């Protein structure tokens, strides 16, 4: 079920009505939320709920064993079991065809005749998100960083909680399970603020991403020929905006919906396009994934505790796997590699050049960071390397006779919107929406809210999927 659909509106109204009715006690409400979460997921593909159940069951049992087992060898075996099941599902469903394809290429390249038909596998929606979430629980249990969930119901709800089930934020057990222990009710202000966040999230997705930016990006990245520099830049900027509004929109909706239930989810984006440098970017973009990768991959690989070389290797491996997490294609690996290289270069430069950031050089560095990020988005969006190559060379103005694909209005629309996006991120980089809203007059807030709602209503979003559902 998509947040930007009629069925979700009806679903949410029913869930809220039951949640705030006096029909259930707190355990009953949690059961209702769990059931609703399975319905939310199952309305897309009912049989794939079984994967959620298996993942939940395995990690619940593993967590239970890890909480009592003292034998280190046995603890390791339990952790291994959980990792095998979770990563096994992820590997099969998400990377099965990718591995098969690469194996075939490898065989053919060493002269072995081998052909394999791609397997007909459905990618379960949000599998990367809930897999990482359940794995964090088991790993934290193994490392004794978190308490075991008190009841199976609390744990199952933690794995399946519908607002963040399919596209995050990826929440740690310690941050969410403990919220289920005591009855939660949103205050009136929390409820209204949650509704406001839901409106903003839908506005970002339906109006900004789908209505204003997606067509331009699709047109440019779907082009067969070589484009002019202006067209390539417009398409890439459009995608940079589209993916931000799409994903941040989902996260904002998720946080808002959870808040309407009195549950607090962590921020997932903090105005990333105003980041100064790439370490800053990853503190602002998809925060729940970048902190997951830091805690469960980068630090176990050695982090910055074992010398500079090891740190750079850990950084590159983390970013390469982070790229692969997004999709089973080499273009995603290149995307991750570019981010890894950017981070390594930034750390090298930071040791040699010391700049005191002020408003002028800050905005210049933020713009530079954003420009470099756009080159990475080309690999993220392009389905083929040839497309990425064409776009990159055009962005470097190496194709002087490239085709003019876009109309003037489309170019203006993208540049105006992206400029506003960048300014907005720059202005907001050290504050939060909540802080700003406190200083805004109720009239202005109400008018802005109404404008967003009106534009969502007339945009008539056709229920297009969120980009991150495929990851």
């Amino acid at each position: 079920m998509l947040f930007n659909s009629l069925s979700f509106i009806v679903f949410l109204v029913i869930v809220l009505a039951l949640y705030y009715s006096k029909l259930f006690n707190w355990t009953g409400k949690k059961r209702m939320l769990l059931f609703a979460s399975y319905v939310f997921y199952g309305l897309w593909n009912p049989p794939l709920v079984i994967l959620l159940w298996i993942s939940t069951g395995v990690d619940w049992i593993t967590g239970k064993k890890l909480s009592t087992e003292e034998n280190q060898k046995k603890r390791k075996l339990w952790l291994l079991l959980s990792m095998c099941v979770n990563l096994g599902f992820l590997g099969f469903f998400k990377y099965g065809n990718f591995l098969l394809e690469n194996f075939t290429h490898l065989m053919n390249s060493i002269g072995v005749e081998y052909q394999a038909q791609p397997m007909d596998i459905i990618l379960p929606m949000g599998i990367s998100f809930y897999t990482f979430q359940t794995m964090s629980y088991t790993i934290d249990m193994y490392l004794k960083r978190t308490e075991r969930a008190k009841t199976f119901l609390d744990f199952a709800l933690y794995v399946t909680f519908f607002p963040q089930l399919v596209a995050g934020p990826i929440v740690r057990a310690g941050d969410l399970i403990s919220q289920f222990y005591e009855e939660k009710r949103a205050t009136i202000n929390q409820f209204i603020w949650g509704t406001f966040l839901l409106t903003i999230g839908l506005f970002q997705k339906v109006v900004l991403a789908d209505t204003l930016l997606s067509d331009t990006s699709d047109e440019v990245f779907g082009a067969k020929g070589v484009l002019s520099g202006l067209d390539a830049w417009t398409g890439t900027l459009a995608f940079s905006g589209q993916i931000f509004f799409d994903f941040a929109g989902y996260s904002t909706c998720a946080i808002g919906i959870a808040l309407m239930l009195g549950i607090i989810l962590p921020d997932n984006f903090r105005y990333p396009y105003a980041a100064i440098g790439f370490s800053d970017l990853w503190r602002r973009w998809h925060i729940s994934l970048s902190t997951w990768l830091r805690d469960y991959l980068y630090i176990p690989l050695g982090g910055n505790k074992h010398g500079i070389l090891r740190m750079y290797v850990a950084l590159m491996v983390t970013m390469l796997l982070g790229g692969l997490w997004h999709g089973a294609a080499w273009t995603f690996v290149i995307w991750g590699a570019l981010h890894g290289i950017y981070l390594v270069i930034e750390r090298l430069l930071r040791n040699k050049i010391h700049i005191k950031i002020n408003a002028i050089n800050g905005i210049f560095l933020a713009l530079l960071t954003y420009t470099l990020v756009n080159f990475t988005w080309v690999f993220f969006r392009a389905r083929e390397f040839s497309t990425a190559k064409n776009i990159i060379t055009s962005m470097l103005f190496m194709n002087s006779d490239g085709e003019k694909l876009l109309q003037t209005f489309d170019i203006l629309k993208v540049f105006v919107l992206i400029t506003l996006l960048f300014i907005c991120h720059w202005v907001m980089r050290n504050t939060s929406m909540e802080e700003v809203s406190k200083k805004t007059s109720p009239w202005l807030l109400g008018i802005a809210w109404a404008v967003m709602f009106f534009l969502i209503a007339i945009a008539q979003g056709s229920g297009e999927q969120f980009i991150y559902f495929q990851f």
Partner: protein
Amino acid sequence: MNLKQPLFIAITLSIICLLSWEIYWRSQGKIPDLDDDKNLWAVQRAKVDNATENDAVLLGSSRVLFDFQLDEWQAETGVRPIQLASAGASPLPIFHDIVNNTNYKGTILVGVTPGLFFSTTYPEASPWKRAQSRVDYFKDRTYAQRLNHWLSLPLQKNFVLVSTSEEGWSDDIDLKSLLNNISISNRTGKPQYPPFNSFAYIEEDRNNPMSKKTATDTVFANSIKTVWKFLIMGNQNPPEREATTNFFLADAKKFMERGGNLILVRCPSSGWIKGGEDKFLSREEFWEPLVNASKAKAYYFEDYNQFKNLICPEDSHLSAKDARFFTTELVRIMKADGALSNSKTN
């Protein structure tokens, strides 16, 4: 921070804005209508799975959609046909789906619009892809998508402001379409697609009469003719007569062998379009070999005096009034031939 006041302001202003929007578009002549999208089509396609030998399925391009009126068909036969024709699309992928993925052995009427029927078997070509994408959607649609469609129907039937289309008509009023109509200059230097406005109203069971405006407003009808000229003159792909005929014949043979009743119909066209069809997709070279090889019952509109003088307002489809006449008369002819049985019980 007290958020009740902004919420109250937002709700009040939203209601005022949406009401104003609704009233404005109604004052511009818009009326609530359904979108002939993949969901509407899929609901009809699902009916084929449980259809019996007494049922009838209509396949083809937009001519079958416009020219066969379901009320008239039902009045003559007692059976309401399942309308699966798809505008701008080849009927071949849909016929292939029904023959190969169902056990249906009732009547299938296939409309032969030469420019689309004989266009291609290439999966990425528009006439094929448009039809195949509907077949794929029918197979893959989720329960959530079914529910969304079901919930959207009462809204579509009652509010103009939710009016939008999968086709992307020039007179759509969703935000994206309104923005797409803004043009500053033609930077690409390529010919611009002429305005293509919706010219029919579709009902829930996909009964699709032409709008009155198209039948009576010559200027409006001419704007549709301009689109046909743009599309036809811009099409550089020659017809694939052999490939399309052979593809269809294989499915036709299979369908008739299991007892299915196959009927081919060439619906009326007129003016510039008719001239082009006669010249480049002639009856002798395209229609006759198909009919002879398929051994299906076949009806060519020009063979019947009552249809010879029918004029299509925009050269390709009948007005609602003429479509009602055409349906009634053709069904009577088919019944007289034994091509259709009369299951009507009085």
